[in-house]
């Protein structure tokens, strides 16, 4: 009996060890696949461009330098670009999260006629890519107003980013509304019932009771929204001709760099060496996101996993 038990114990211990071993191996291997470009970026941005031709340099640069980063920041006009991005994208994110939270709450807690149809439209909104409607949307903004009465040209103004965000139609708003809806459905109804008994209007109950209870979820939605806006180059390139945001800048990084840095005919830079600047550009444009992610990571991972978005 005890022998059997011992044998059994040994067996489970062995399998446990094996499972743990392989799990760690797989996870470390795949983490490397994910982290590889970022490590490579960091490694590239701090080396001199001659290191690119040195076969002995793989990860650790021979000559450390900050020049590449400085030059790239200059070429990207980083200060202004970052300012534009903050004003446009972060502002839009805040507005978008608010409007989506309100809409999601409306869908989660109230019954009204036409709700099914609206939910159908909401799903359709998630399915239809923005590319399908971007051209009519452009004309919509170009001649904004009531046909025959008045029309304003909103292209190149902040309004064409802020208006859709405010009205719950920003970038991937459908998805955020759906997530909020599921989240509010999961909160206990007693919360607002108590507020209503105390004489709060539903809107007051929403602001005073529901919002404070969902702070961590709102932060998550906000992070999602920042990611969508930060990485967007399509929508902003449709509506803006000269406002540079980081997403746009990155998309055309190649041409910007060659205009600013490589225009000098006396300097010959091989395409192989140009990678240094490209990587530095990538690094400084995702750096703000990465730093934000490091701080908010806990909210992001834990609250999504535990909030019951699913269901």
């Amino acid at each position, binding site marked *: 009996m005890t022998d059997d038990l011992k044998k059994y114990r040994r067996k489970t211990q062995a399998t446990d060890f094996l499972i743990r071993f392989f799990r760690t191996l797989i996870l470390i291997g795949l983490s490397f696949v994910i982290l590889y470009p970022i490590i490579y970026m960091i490694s590239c941005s701090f080396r001199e461009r001659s290191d690119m031709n040195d076969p002995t340099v793989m990860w650790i640069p021979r000559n450390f330098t900050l020049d590449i980063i400085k030059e790239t920041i200059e070429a990207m006009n980083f200060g202004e670009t970052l300012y534009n991005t903050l004003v446009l994208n972060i502002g839009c994110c805040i507005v978008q999260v608010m409007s989506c939270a309100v809409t999601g709450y409306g869908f989660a807690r109230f019954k009204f006629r036409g709700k099914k149809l609206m939910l159908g439209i909401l799903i359709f909104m998630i399915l239809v890519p923005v590319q399908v409607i971007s051209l009519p949307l452009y004309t919509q903004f170009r001649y904004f107003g009531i046909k025959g009465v008045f029309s304003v040209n909103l292209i190149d103004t902040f309004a064409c980013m802020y208006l859709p965000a405010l009205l719950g139609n920003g970038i991937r708003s459908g998805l955020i509304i759906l997530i909020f809806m599921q989240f509010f459905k999961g909160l206990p109804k007693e919360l607002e019932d108590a507020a209503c008994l105390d004489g709060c209007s539903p809107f007051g109950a929403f602001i005073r009771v529901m919002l404070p209870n969902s702070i961590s979820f709102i932060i998550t939605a906000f992070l999602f929204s920042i990611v969508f806006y930060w990485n967007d180059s399509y929508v902003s390139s449709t509506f803006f001709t000269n406002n540079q945001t980081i997403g746009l800048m990155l998309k055309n990084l190649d041409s910007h760099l060659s205009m600013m840095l490589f225009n000098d005919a006396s300097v010959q830079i091989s395409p192989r060496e140009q990678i240094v600047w490209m990587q530095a550009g990538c690094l400084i444009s995702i750096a703000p996101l990465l730093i934000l992610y490091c701080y908010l990571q806990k909210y992001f*991972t834990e609250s999504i996993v535990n909030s019951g978005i699913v269901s």
Partner: protein
Amino acid sequence: MKKKSYEKRKELYGYGFVSLWIIGTVIFFLIPLVKSLIYSVSDVTIGEKSLATSFTGIENYYNALFSDRKYSSVLWSTLKETIWKTPLILIFSLFIAVLLNNKFRGRTFFRAVFFLPVIIASGPVYSIISGDMADTGNMNAEQFSTLFSNNLLGELLQFLGIYGITENMNTYITLITDNIFSIVWSSGIQIIIFLAALQNIPVSAKEAAVIEGATSWDYFWKITFPYVSPFILANFIFTFIDAFTNPTNAVMKRIFEIRNDLNFGLSAAMSWIYFGVVLAVIGVITFISRKWIYYGNEEA
């Protein structure tokens, strides 16, 4: 009487909450959608104050499918690629989610790492790191993936004295290993959704399985899989849409090319065809999978 008025009031409040969205949707979604549908069946020219359209019927659709060789071939290849890649992404993300759902040291770190693609992958950074620089001959993601694709398995089997099977198998394996980078990088959100689903498995089911003496293998197929099945469908749809709306994919590029030639009608028709194909695939998969999906908690 009073109850009814209360309900009425509540209905009004409901409209109040969603009114912003309704206005926005009409202006920024429904009207443009209808307009683009109109463009797709007409000849669009740039007029004085707005775009002038004249009705031409299905000519644009016909041109898109049969006259533009490049469009149809690109459409077909993109569809094929998405169809074989999506199951791989799903399997991979479910696997990782199950791993990350266990308790072990360093879990927070690994979770943070695996969600990292969510932050970066949708942007232009991804197109830079995933091999837009291939022509420069430098070390990049594509080359990185081929690191794995040496014929290791074939050599192993030959070592064991088995010949011949591996040639077929090898093509599949290289297919996977060559794309391991893009698969890992496009499964961030899917992992999150699966993890959330795994957390929702009731404790009672776990306990019952342990008491019945289920092995981890049994547990996965009898407990985990049924509970997760609805989310496999949701993830499938998400993955498909994500691949489909990605501006870097070939069909989208072709549509932009046509649009930049100011051929708005044709480009609208192309995007509607594309959209229709994707909707059809999603519809078929949803219909087929309906049988196998287990909805444990209907009321939730």
